[in-house]
């Protein structure tokens, strides 16, 4: 699906073919009073040199982008190999759309099939869709699906799920007849697992848990799967830091029924929060209940392998209001970036990157915990994010570090949880150098 420009002559020819003399006539059905009646006020065209200069100056205003960053909480800074941008910019691939026509879209369909396969391998699940908008909408869709599968309407979520994910889930379920309850996290460990296992009953459609959770703590998924299944409920696992899949036991191997994740960590730039890509995976037996697009492998009359959209009867263009989801599209281009990233890194590369995240985070946490006035309030194991409790209000602490030391040291938890004035969330990835971590520690010690 390419952008095909046309010349003024071609436009005249097209207009003639439909019996019109100007493109304006196409808008005749819009009442006169509602039309703009003048050209849009767009600035005059710039030369390439002027344009580059303009954006250069705009870019320089973004001071935060040049600071050493320890920001995570759902969006992670990972290295993106240059091949990712190169491949996704190719005109054969450059579209956000899902291809309907297999006869002209085998390349894109094959990429989506590979994407689904990679998501299955990473999550340890049987089946993955062609992607969702992002991690949070994928989680909301998982909750709706759990209700369809179990025909139960109570969903118990960990309170240590990313607060913005919870907001999205609430938005989705508020008129869907689903009763969303929260199970609080333990103040000492930072884990919600025990409270979730306690709360599940035979009316529960699903337990929703994030791991590593919002505080970076790794939950015991196997125990939660057992607790959920004992009551006939599903275990829905959400992951904001997909890089953790390179190191932790897969949710599938732990017994999860639906796994959703934000795929931004895989070759997708932070770009102020989007577009990102949601991963959605489940068990084979729930194939007909999944939301979104699905690409399957097929064979033509002559036995040649090919790829097609499949199980489309779940979707709204066929099933109207009974569709499994109102999302009938996917994040094609971003899923492509994730696919190229994962195939470039390979199994060992992802493990290596995840390992570096873990080691560097452990180094940073260990050094910060030794500083006077600082502690780590949660005892559970973490991956590459951890909560730090400082000696003063964290909003003030963080803005001082940003201004005086050019370090974005973390995210103040008080933004989401008003009783945690002195707590902030620190994230360390493979892109943070030891010098940056040491500078962070020394800046904290000099406060």
């Amino acid at each position, binding site marked *: 699906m390419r952008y095909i420009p046309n010349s003024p002559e071609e436009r005249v020819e097209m207009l003639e073919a439909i019996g019109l003399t100007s493109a304006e006539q196409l808008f005749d059905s819009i009442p006169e009073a509602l039309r703009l009646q003048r050209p849009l006020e767009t600035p005059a065209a710039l030369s390439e040199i002027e344009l580059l200069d303009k954006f250069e100056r705009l870019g320089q205003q973004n001071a935060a982008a040049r600071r050493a960053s320890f920001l995570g909480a759902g969006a992670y800074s990972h290295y993106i190999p240059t091949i990712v941008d190169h491949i996704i910019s190719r005109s054969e691939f450059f579209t956000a759309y899902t291809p309907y026509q297999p006869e002209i879209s085998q390349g894109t369909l094959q990429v989506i099939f590979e994407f689904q396969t990679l998501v299955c391998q990473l999550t340890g699940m049987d089946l993955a869709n062609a992607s969702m908008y992002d991690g949070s909408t994928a989680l909301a869709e998982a909750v709706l699906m759990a209700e369809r599968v179990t*025909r139960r309407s109570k969903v118990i979520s960990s309170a240590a799920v990313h607060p913005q994910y919870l907001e999205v889930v609430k938005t989705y379920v508020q008129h869907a007849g689903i009763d969303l309850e929260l199970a609080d996290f333990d103040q000492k460990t930072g884990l919600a697992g025990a409270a979730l296992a306690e709360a599940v009953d035979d009316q529960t459609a699903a337990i929703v848990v994030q791991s590593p959770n919002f505080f970076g703590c790794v939950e015991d998924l196997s125990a939660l799967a057992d607790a959920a299944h004992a009551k006939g409920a599903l275990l829905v696992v959400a992951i904001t830091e997909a890089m953790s899949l390179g190191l932790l036991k897969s949710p599938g191997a732990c017994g999860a029924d639906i796994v959703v994740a934000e795929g931004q960590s895989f070759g997708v730039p932070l770009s102020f929060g989007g577009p990102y890509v949601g991963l959605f995976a489940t068990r084979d037996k729930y194939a*007909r209940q999944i939301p979104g697009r699905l690409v399957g492998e097929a064979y033509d009359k002559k036995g040649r392998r090919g790829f097609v959209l499949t199980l489309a009867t779940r979707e709204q263009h*066929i*099933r109207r209001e*009974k569709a499994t989801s109102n999302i009938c599209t996917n994040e094609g281009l971003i899923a492509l970036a994730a696919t190229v990233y994962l195939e470039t890194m390979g199994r060992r590369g992802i493990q290596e990157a995840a390992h570096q995240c873990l080691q560097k985070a452990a180094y940073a946490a260990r050094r910060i915990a030794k500083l006077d006035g600082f502690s780590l309030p949660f005892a559970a194991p973490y991956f590459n994010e951890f909560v730090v409790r400082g000696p003063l209000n964290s909003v003030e602490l963080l803005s001082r570090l940003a201004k005086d030391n050019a370090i974005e040291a973390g995210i103040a938890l008080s933004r989401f949880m008003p009783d945690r004035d002195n707590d902030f969330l620190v994230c360390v990835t493979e892109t943070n150098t030891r010098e940056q971590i040491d500078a962070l520690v020394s800046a904290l010690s000099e406060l």
Partner: protein
Amino acid sequence: MANVPEDLHYSKDHEWVRVEGDQAIIGITDYAQNSLGDVVYVELPKTGEEFAANEPFGSVESVKAVSEVFTPVAGAVVTINESLADEPEKVNSDPYGEGWMIRLRMANPGDVDSLLTAAEYEDFTKAESE
């Protein structure tokens, strides 16, 4: 010509009802399965669920389309045909036998009186296909 057994009751939505005491066995007709084409999935309710007459109780997915199936009589589900989960093609091969869908305990056994007889249903499908 579609097969329309004499001893069953029929609905205009192309379901059949076989009455056994106060229970009703329900499936879709030969005419319906033939119009749908190869059935690939049948979605059925849970045991114990209650339905009013003419309410949808599930859906049938064929290679062409997804259609809801309606219960012509009111009642509570006693059993469902679990085997359709693995062998939905029974709906095509034996719509009045192994392709049955649900067994209801009827709320009002009188409901069947308003349904079509085999002859009436045959006329109805003839008129519909003309």
